[in-house]
C-alpha cells in the first residue's frame, strides 16, 4: 500500500499519476462534475483578474487627455528601472532568507518533539502551539504592535526594568526582525501541524524495522522521519515563500505606529497597494503585481522541482 506522502510526492512530481489502478475510471469525464464548480469560481476569482491585470499592464493612463493608450511593455521596463520596487523586493527577500528557515526549523523541532512520545502532555503542547494560528493576523499585529510600543507595551516595561532605552522594536533597525517575530509567532504552530500530520502517516512497521536494526533516536529521525516529511516540507516551504513575498498586513498595520520607519513601498505588495489606492496608478500597480507574481511563481516552481527530486 502506498503511504500518504509518497502519493502526494507522486502528484507533486506529476509522474506516474496516470498509472492505471484498480477502481479508477479510465478516460472518463465524470470527474468534471466534482471539479467543475470549484474551477468555475476559481476562474472568476483567480484567472479572470490575472488576465485583466495583464491587460491593464499594457496600457498607460493619459494624464491630460484621459483614457488609456497602449504602451506595450513600457510599464515593465519602468518596473525594472524602479529603485523603489527593487528596494522593496530586496527587503522581502532578506526577510524570506532569514525568517522562513527559522520558522520552519522551529516548527519541525516542535513536530518531532510532539511526535516523539518523549514529551509530557504532548497533546496539550500541540494545541497551545497551534493556537496563534487561530488569532486573526490583524489582531496579532495590533497586539504585538502595542507590546512593542513605548506607551504601555512590554518593551517599555523591559526598558524600565533594565534602566535603559535599548529595546526599540519599532525603530528603523529593529523593524524587520520585529515583523519577522510576529510572522513566526503566528505560523510556527500551523507549520508544526502540517509536519506533525505527515509524521502520523509513517507506517508503524518502519519504526519496528528501524528498532530491529538498532537505530537510535537520531538515526530514526534521519532515516525514517525526515524522508517521510519531505513532501510536507516542500509544501510548507512553498507556502512560506509565497507568504513572505506577499507580506502586507504586518507592515501596513504597524505603519500607523511607526509612520516614519515604514514607507509606502516597504514591501512590493504595499507598493502595489499604495500605487493603486493612494496614487490611482492602476496600470503601473498591476504591472508591479504581475512582476512580483511571476518572480514568486518561478521561485515556488524551482523549490518544488528540487524538493521532489532531491532526498533530504
Amino acid at each position, binding site marked *: 500500500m502506498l503511504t500518504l506522502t509518497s502519493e502526494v510526492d507522486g502528484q507533486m512530481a506529476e509522474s506516474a499519476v496516470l498509472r492505471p489502478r484498480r477502481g479508477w475510471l479510465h478516460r472518463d469525464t465524470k470527474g468534471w462534475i466534482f471539479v467543475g464548480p470549484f474551477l468555475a469560481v476559481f476562474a*472568476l476569482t483567480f484567472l479572470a483578474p490575472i488576465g485583466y491585470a495583464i491587460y491593464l499592464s499594457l496600457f498607460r493612463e493619459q494624464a491630460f487627455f484621459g483614457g488609456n493608450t497602449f504602451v506595450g511593455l513600457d510599464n515593465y521596463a519602468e518596473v525594472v528601472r524602479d529603485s523603489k520596487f527593487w528596494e522593496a523586493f530586496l527587503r522581502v527577500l532578506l526577510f524570506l532568507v532569514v525568517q522562513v528557515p527559522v520558522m520552519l526549523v522551529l516548527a519541525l523541532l516542535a513536530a518531532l518533539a510532539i511526535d516523539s512520545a518523549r514529551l*509530557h502532555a504532548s497533546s496539550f503542547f500541540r494545541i497551545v502551539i497551534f493556537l496563534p494560528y487561530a488569532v486573526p493576523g490583524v489582531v496579532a499585529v495590533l497586539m504585538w504592535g502595542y507590546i512593542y510600543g513605548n506607551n504601555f507595551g512590554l518593551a517599555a516595561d523591559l526598558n524600565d526594568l533594565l534602566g535603559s532605552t535599548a529595546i526599540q522594536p519599532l525603530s528603523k533597525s529593529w523593524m524587520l526582525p520585529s515583523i519577522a517575530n510576529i510572522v513566526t509567532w503566528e505560523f510556527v504552530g500551523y507549520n508544526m501541524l502540517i509536519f506533525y500530520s505527515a509524521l502520523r502517516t509513517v507506517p508503524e512497521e518502519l519504526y519496528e524495522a528501524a528498532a530491529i536494526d538498532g537505530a537510535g533516536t537520531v538515526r530514526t529521525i534521519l532515516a525514517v522521519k525526515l524522508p517521510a516529511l519531505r513532501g510536507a516540507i516542500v509544501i510548507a516551504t512553498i507556502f512560506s515563500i509565497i507568504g513572505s513575498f506577499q507580506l502586507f498586513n504586518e507592515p501596513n498595520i504597524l505603519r500607523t505606529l511607526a509612520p516614519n520607519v515604514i514607507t509606502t513601498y516597504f514591501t512590493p505588495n504595499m507598493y502595489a497597494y499604495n500605487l493603486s489606492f493612494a496614487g490611482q496608478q492602476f496600470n503601473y500597480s498591476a504591472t508591479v503585481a504581475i512582476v512580483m507574481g511571476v518572480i514568486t511563481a518561478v521561485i515556488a516552481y524551482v523549490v518544488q522541482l528540487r524538493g521532489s527530486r532531491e532526498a533530504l
Partner: protein
Amino acid sequence: MSTTTSPLRPRRSPLLTGLMLLYLVYTLVPLLWLFLSATKTQDDLLSSPGLWFGKSFALFGNISDTLTYNDGIFLRWLGNTLLYVVVGAGGATLLATAAGYGLAKYRFAGRRAVFAVLLGAVAVPGTALAVPTFLMFSNLGLTNTVWAIIIPSLVSPFGLYLMWVYATDAVPHDLLEAARIDGAGEIRIFFTVALRLLAPGIVTVLLFAVVSTWNNYFLPLIMLSKPNLYPLTVGLTQWSNQATGVGARPIYNLVITGSLLTIVPLVVAFLLLQRFWQSGLSAGSVKQ
C-alpha cells in the same frame, strides 16, 4: 494511534518537556498580555506593569464600552464577519470537498492541466489579484456589497489540496466500485458513500476556511468603504488608526478589548472541535 502500539516506548524526557515549555511561554505571553490589558482602564494601561493586573478590574466595563461604542458598530462588524464566514467558508468547504474528491478518485482528461493551473495560480501574490479584482468587481457594481467579500472567499486552494490528499486514502476504490456495480450514480455515491468517509477531513477544511475568512483583512480593506459592511478585522484597525492618528481619540482600551473578543470565538471553536480536526489531520496514520 502509533504511539500506543509502538515497540519503542521511550521514557518521557523532562529536558525536552522543559525546552518545549520555553516555547509555550513565548506562545502564550502575548495572549496573556492581551487578556490582562483588556482588564485595565485607560489610566491603568499606562501606569501598571504589562504582565500584571492594574488597580481596578475593568474587563466588564471595557466589554460593554466596546459593544456600545458608536451605536454598537462592533456588534454590526461581528454580524458581518459571521455572515462572511458562514456563507464564504461553508461554500468554500463544499466546493473544495467535491473538487478534492474528484481529483483524487477520477482520472479524467485535463486533470493534469487542472493541477498545473492551480499550483501556478496559488503562487500569484494577493495584490496581483486584488487590484484587478477590485477594478473588475467595481465594473460589475459589486464593490461595497457583501458579494465582494463572499465570492473570492469561496475558493480555497489549500482546502482543495488537503481534501485531495485526504480523499486519496480515506475513500477505498473497492467501495466505489461496489457502489457502481450496485447501480448507484456518481453524484449519489459522493453524497451517500464518500461524504461520510470524508467527514473528518471536511471538518478540518471547514475550520481552516473559517479561520481564513474570519481573518480576512486585505480583501475587505480594498473592497469596502462603508463601515457598516466591515468585518471585525478592518473595523479594529480603523479604531486603532483613530487611537494613534493625528488628533487621536485614545480608545486603546476598545481596540484591545475588541481584539480579545475577536479571538475568543475561534479559539473556542478549535478547542471544542479538537477531536474532529485532529482526527482529520492524523487519520492518515490509521490505515484501513
